């Protein structure tokens, strides 16, 4: 009996490690930018190319920055959530059209609706690199001082919205 106790306990420990490992999502890489100032940018706007979209204009506001593209499947998945958030008016959503064609982006928004207050164009993907984006969609919660407070990797859903983003936004707006 004693002879089997040691191998069995080792087995249980290994299974425990594997079980935890299986539940982790390797695609979710923790961002070092959370808690740091959002990188600055000034990008042409999608609808008015001569105008510039810059986070400096949003100081004093809590806002979401959503990286998306018309070629991105996950963006279609999360789109109803963004539309609902825009309707509720809880927090303004700003878009960054990541490595996209303007006409395709506009056609996509015509078809599915536009939840964004302003959309910036990041055709070279440089703003994306500065924000540590490695796959659209990604969404950042940015506070009144321009600090990134949360990063959502992958599509937003009701659960994340209700449990993480909205409580955080309320807390930040109250500050």
């Amino acid at each position, binding site marked *: 009996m004693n002879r089997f106790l040691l191998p069995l306990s080792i087995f249980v420990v290994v299974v425990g490690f594997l079980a935890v490992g299986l539940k982790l999502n390797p695609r979710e*890489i923790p961002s070092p930018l959370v808690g740091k100032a959002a990188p600055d940018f000034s990008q042409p706007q999608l609808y008015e190319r001569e105008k510039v979209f810059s986070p400096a204009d949003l100081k004093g506001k809590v806002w979401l920055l959503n990286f998306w593209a018309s070629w991105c499947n996950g963006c279609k998945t999360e789109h109803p959530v963004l539309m609902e958030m825009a309707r509720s008016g809880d927090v303004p959503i700003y878009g960054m059209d990541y490595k996209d064609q303007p006409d395709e982006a506009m056609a996509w928004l015509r078809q599915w609706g536009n939840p964004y207050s302003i959309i910036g164009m990041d055709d070279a993907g440089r703003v994306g690199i500065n924000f540590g984006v490695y796959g659209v969609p990604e969404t950042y919660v940015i506070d009144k001082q321009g600090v990134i407070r949360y990063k959502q990797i992958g599509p937003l859903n009701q659960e994340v919205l209700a449990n993480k983003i909205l409580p955080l936004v309320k807390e930040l707006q109250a500050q």
Partner: protein
Amino acid sequence: MNWLALILLLMPGLAWAGEARPLADDPVAEARLKHLAVELRCLVCQNQTLADSNAPLAEDLRREVREMIAKNMSDKEIIEFLVSRYGDFVLYRPPLRATTTLLWVGPFVLLTIGATALVITLRRRAHKVVEVAVSEEEHRKVEQLMAEGGKRS
């Protein structure tokens, strides 16, 4: 129908393969990029280096690195640039930190445990062999049994 076949036959003539262009005009810069890119992980296809990956993000990051090389930034500065945006995950050699101690020390801990277990088991086994003591009576019994066995065969 014949002319269509003729056109189709002539088609391959129109396709021609160009030679792959060198990635940069400066071979020294390209060598530095290669040297750096094999140490960096592509974030999209996570088990490939930045040098191997064809993912659009990897292409963009190579472009960034190339530009930083052109600006004469040091390897350390370039790696710092990427780590500040993507975290230690971009490094194929994770730095020794509080969160990565298990990663670095773990194999040695396992090795020590294994070696200790091996030594203990071997010692115990040696012990067992030594400790066998045969009494006079047992000795006689064994001899008797062996003699009987010899008769039987």
